[in-house]
């Protein structure tokens, strides 16, 4: 568990991260360097530099198609960057250092590094052929090598956290969208990642179940153990839960800072016009 020790060490070293100003000593848990990604002709990320500190919660906002989701998918190794590098906890993700040179990583290397990352998808992607409990225990047993009892215990504890212990034996198809997403969050959490990615976790949900999912995420955020990257269209949620907000547009970060500043005094015109589509701070703050 030496990795966890270093994480707590960096946490202690880290002082209040204020917007883009960071202390020199604090090591980011995730570091994007000049990351670009193109799909054919279409360049969705343009030399993005982006750091995520341990325990930091960053909300990523921006219009659809601005590259937010791709940013997360690159870190989860679901897409491969066209150029640039990503570091996770000091290790290269998509590359391997061989004799001082960076070469493309193989599946084995990816397998080692991506254990630090967990992800919650827009469309939940639960395994329809397994019970809820099995959805939560399968990877801990098969990937982490826990015993069935340990995995079960961990899974039940997590189900309790998301308020779904009574659904342990049900199948995903019998759950509402909100419940499925809560299970998906629990499924990611039982793996104990250092970084959690939420890719628009509520955009596929019925409006009446959005709240229950956001509440669960807020609760996890409040524990403050993991770094979180929250891609979302829920502005008031982004403001309430994050330490930092990054505004993405046209494949770059256009502006970032603490929510208190970004939502109140946006600098760029783009962000102003983007935010004007949401009415914030008036009635729906929680």
């Amino acid at each position, binding site marked *: 568990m030496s990795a966890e020790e270093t994480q707590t060490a960096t946490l202690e070293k880290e002082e209040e991260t204020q917007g883009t100003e960071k202390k020199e000593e604090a090591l980011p848990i995730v570091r994007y360097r000049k990351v670009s990604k193109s799909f054919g002709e279409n360049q969705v990320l343009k030399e993005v530099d982006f750091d995520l500190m341990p325990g930091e919660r960053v909300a990523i906002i921006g219009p659809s198609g601005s590259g937010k989701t791709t940013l997360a998918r690159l870190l*989860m190794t679901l897409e491969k960057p066209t150029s640039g590098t990503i570091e996770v906890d000091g290790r290269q993700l998509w590359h391997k250092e061989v004799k001082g040179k960076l070469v493309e990583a193989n599946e084995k290397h990816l397998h080692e590094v991506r254990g630090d990352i967990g992800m919650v*998808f827009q469309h939940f992607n639960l395994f*329809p052929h397994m019970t809820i409990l099995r959805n939560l225990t399968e990877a801990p047993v*098969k990937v982490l090598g826990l015993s069935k009892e340990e995995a079960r215990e961990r899974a039940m504890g997590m189900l309790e956290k998301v308020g779904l212990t009574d659904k342990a034996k049900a199948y995903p198809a019998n759950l509402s969208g909100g419940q499925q997403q809560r299970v998906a969050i629990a499924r990611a959490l039982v793996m104990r990642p250092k970084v959690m990615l939420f890719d628009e976790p509520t955009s596929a949900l019925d409006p009446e179940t959005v709240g229950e999912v956001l509440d669960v995420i807020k609760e996890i955020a409040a524990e403050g153990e993991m770094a979180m990257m929250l891609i979302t269209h829920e502005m008031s949620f982004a403001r309430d839960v994050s330490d930092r907000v990054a505004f993405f547009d046209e494949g770059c970060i256009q502006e970032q800072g603490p929510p208190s500043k970004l939502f109140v005094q946006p600098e760029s015109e783009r962000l102003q016009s983007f935010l004007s589509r949401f009415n914030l701070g008036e009635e729906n703050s929680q």
Partner: protein
Amino acid sequence: MVPIDVIAHIFDRLLPGAAVTVQLTVLSAILAFFLSFLGGFGRLSKFRIIRFVSAFLVEFFRGTSLLVQLFWLYFALPLLGLELPTGLVGILALGINYGAYGSEVVRSAILSIPQGQTEAGIALNMTPGQRMRLIILPQAFRTMLPSFGNLLIELLKGTALVSLITIPDMTFEAKSMRTNAEEYTLQIFGILLILYFIIGYPLSLLTRWAERRFSVGRS
């Protein structure tokens, strides 16, 4: 009109053939099942050469017609110096031919599983083998079942062709019975058809049950 004992006699004479038909169906189905997965995985391999070879073999065995393959193995192969037991020729031709069709079933079922399932597997840090074994295959297998059921019925029907290479299945028995009792041609072939139906219809009910069972209620 027809004396009962004639029908009973025909039944009696056809039953040993029915046993051969069932045996052939089961053995070739096992071979076809195995080849379906071999071919299906081959066509999805990450190596181009394996994809190409399996696609070629699948097209070859689907394209050359079952009876032609059967005759080739029975008449031509011995002339090239390899004489196989006739029963084995039947099993091989049926197994390979329906295995080629089955590989398409396997391939398309695997491709039908949404990309999100693979991605969830990656996000949980499963290895490619684990993703296939624990996530993709169990789901794909349900989609395969109805198609496999239909292929099994086709295979059963296909076994009748082996009568043409002297394997004593039901159809062979019926034909040889007819040469000595032409006046009962109607009864002989009528009962033969009914016997095939008795074997095949439960399979088709089972297939439709699988279709309903596995197509609804899953998101």
